[in-house]
């Protein structure tokens, strides 16, 4: 797993934890929690997946360059 993917996952998790700590006492907390958690999951999963795909593609490119005479 690439460094960017790990940071994205950690930041997403930290945001979700913050939301669960701060929001529950508020009015309409259910909607606020759902909005923040869904957004955090969408953005973190995409960022995590993208960072992994870039890492894999870069490794593939350097491997091809090493093989090509």
């Amino acid at each position: 797993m690439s460094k960017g993917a790990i940071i994205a996952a950690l930041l997403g998790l930290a945001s979700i934890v913050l939301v669960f700590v701060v929001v529950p006492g508020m009015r309409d907390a259910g909607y606020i929690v759902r909005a923040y958690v869904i957004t955090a999951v969408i953005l973190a999963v995409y960022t995590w997946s993208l960072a992994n795909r870039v890492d894999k593609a870069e490794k593939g490119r350097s491997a091809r360059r090493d093989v090509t005479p």
Partner: protein
Amino acid sequence: MGNVIIFMAVAVLTVVVIGYTLALAKKPAEAAKRGAVIAGVVAAVLIVLGLYLGLVWAPTERMMGDSYRIMYIHFPSWVGTAAGYLVAFIASIAYLRTRDQGYDYVAASAAEIGLLFNATGLVTGALWGRPTWGVYWTWDPRLTTTAIMAITFAGYLVLRAFIEDPEARARVSSLVAIVGFVNVPIVYFSVRWWRTLHQVQSSPETVDSPMVWALRTMMVAFLFLFLYLLISRYMLARIRGEEELEAVRLEVASE
């Protein structure tokens, strides 16, 4: 006066970010990677700060209560959406003028990131609408034009997946991105042209200062997140594009 200066600063920052994304087509991979790291770090710091400001520091709104706090991710999502579709639009024009594949990679990447933020904007909007309007969704002009915008750019990405020839794909999808962008200003002005359920844009003069600062922080954070994602997606598109061109070259050579 202070608000005007801040508005100008945000506008200049937006122009710089969009200008940088368009310049990606001419940048070496190492420089782009450095840009992604800087944008990613700035985005992460500002998101943490913005979440604190929006969820803890900003006061409860008198009419809506706490559900208005969804705005701190709802409105910044539209900043990412507008930036994505605008970059896709300009890069598509640049591609048609120059036929430089780099601009096609920028356009495709920007459309994908724009659609990502469009999705978070729609979801957060629905979750704000339920406690405020009593419904998750209604066929209000703003909501309808936004849904059309999302469908158009989803169609743009599907179309790209169906065309194998890189040049034909870039040419056809550029036209779709240009036509699709026509809807973006319609979405923005829809709340003024058709005064229905969705309220018009707020002014910083009529909103409490901590609320404005929390919103500005999240807006800039999402702009940097957009930049980080766009550079990363562009790097992936460029590597895949090079592989594709190499495969075409080998196929021609073997015939």
